[in-house]
């Protein structure tokens, strides 16, 4: 056995060095990967540590304060959901129509590649630039001032490409055999898409939409100049007015740090950061579970 181990073992100094490099780099790759996990765990723990003392029923429901301590984030949470729902309401039909067209109908050609190129470019437009565009169109040109609707429409532009992409990828994951099976029974292409392709793609589609919803929820830069940095001062803090200003929670976190005069800005910021993080976790987890549940129901696995 000793001889066996010796002859399969590294003989030259060069071979020893190559094995050492291999071991070293393997260790480095492991360290890099684990550092990401540690980083995330640390972030979550740290925000929890900072934010937990700030959380109370009062904080979560009370209106914010401009000057005095003791302000809450109730209307901001409401506005975040309100703008999220508005945005999804506009984005989903357009993005799905576009995605279905590109994936199922479009023939390769100048028009198709132009649409693809636009979608890709739109996807890399920085959100602050999109925010200025929204400012220009909705605030300045249409004279709406800063509004919930203007914010939602700006976010629609910002997230259209991503959702279109999600639709395309979800549809692409459906095997062609499903389509052929349906078409062979005499179904039209639209019937096939509606009754076979879309139901089969429902799991990745839902997962994708929920993940994007999480991103819309946390979007800030595009909203500062379109939906505003104050909550509505109308009849109620929980205001469904499309044309009222509507500061969201993420904008509030930024505003608290940079402009606000309240003495307890750190407390409000810590609490807001924690609520935002928890929401992101909820969106991610529910995306995962909804996706799993749906694919189990429709695909039998």
């Amino acid at each position, binding site marked *: 056995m000793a001889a066996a181990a010796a002859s399969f073992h590294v003989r030259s100094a060069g071979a020893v060095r190559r094995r050492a490099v291999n071991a070293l780099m393997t260790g480095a790759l492991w360290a890099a990967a684990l550092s*990401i996990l540690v980083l995330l765990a640390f972030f979550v723990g740290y925000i929890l540590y900072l934010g937990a003392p700030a959380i109370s029923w009062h904080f979560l429901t009370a209106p914010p304060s401009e000057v005095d301590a003791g302000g809450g984030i109730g209307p901001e949470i409401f506005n975040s959901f309100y703008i999220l729902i508005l945005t999804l309401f506009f984005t989903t039909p357009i993005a799905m129509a576009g995605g279905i067209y590109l994936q199922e109908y479009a023939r390769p050609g100048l028009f198709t590649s132009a649409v693809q190129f636009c979608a890709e*470019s739109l996807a890399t437009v920085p959100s602050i630039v999109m925010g200025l565009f929204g400012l220009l169109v909705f605030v300045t040109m249409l004279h709406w001032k800063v509004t919930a609707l203007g914010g939602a429409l700006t976010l629609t532009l910002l997230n259209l490409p991503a959702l279109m992409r999600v639709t395309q990828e979800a549809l692409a994951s459906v095997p062609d055999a499903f389509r052929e099976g349906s078409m062979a029974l005499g179904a039209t292409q639209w019937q096939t898409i509606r009754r076979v392709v879309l139901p089969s793609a429902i799991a990745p589609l839902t997962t994708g939409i929920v993940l994007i919803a999480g991103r819309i929820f946390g979007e*800030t830069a595009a909203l*500062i100049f379109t939906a505003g940095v104050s909550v509505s001062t109308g009849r109620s803090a929980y205001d469904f007015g499309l044309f009222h200003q509507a500061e969201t929670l993420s*904008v509030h976190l*930024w505003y608290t740090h940079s402009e606000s005069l309240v003495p307890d800005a750190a407390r409000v910021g810590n609490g807001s*950061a924690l609520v935002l993080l928890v929401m992101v976790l909820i969106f991610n987890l529910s995306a995962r579970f909804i996706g799993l549940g749906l694919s189990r129901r429709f695909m039998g696995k």
Partner: protein
Amino acid sequence: MGALIVYLAYMGLQLFVVDHVSPLTFLFSSNFAPDEKHPGALVFIIGSVTITLFAICVGGPLGVAVGIFLSLLAPKRLAGAMKPAIEILVGIPSVVYGWLGLTLLVPLVREHAGSQTGFGLLTAGIVLSIMILPTVVSLSEDALRAVPVALQEGSMSLGATRWQTIWNVLLPAARGGLTVAVILGIARAIGEALAVQMVIGNSAVLPKGLLAPTAALTTEIVTDMGSAQEGTVLFHSLFSMALLLLLIAMALIFAVRLALRRSA
């Protein structure tokens, strides 16, 4: 998309057409004095480029390393745990990254790196490095997964170590996809506004080093847009900066296309 470009181009060019500011002044002067019709944006351009370079030099290799790990080395369970972790990192809003930078990194840099305030290029660069990680990780993982297993087997069967296989065969074979990963990381970094704005210090002066506070294109827009009067030189110059950012984004998309075409 067309409307967006036309509109921003129209607004962004007002500075040069209506206010008669020379584009050279805008691009190459470091004196930002819009009230005196001298809106030199060089400080912001340098700020944006520096923090982006920093982020890509730190976050790029780290991200590719994790991509390699996930596509080739990770045991199934660990990979299963890391996927959602990376999705969550993508999902964390940029203001929360900014807030973390503010409460965690700024004091750290102030006390240990010898900076007076803790705000500045270094802090912003670190925050951005973390923010681009998920983009680089998932794209480079995809790029490496696209390399046929046969190439890996061919190399290993010749007696190459795992690392030799990665370095000599897999990384070169995935070059196109890895380039795309880095370019999109750059795109994410240069366009980020709030997280940077919260930690860079926001002073329109040329930084004397990595520790000095300064500003970037995006942060200057965030800082001054709220108070800019419509039609002023300041207002117009902010739109010129937005146009510049848009042009950079489009140039990066072209670069992606080029990289993909060359690798195909």
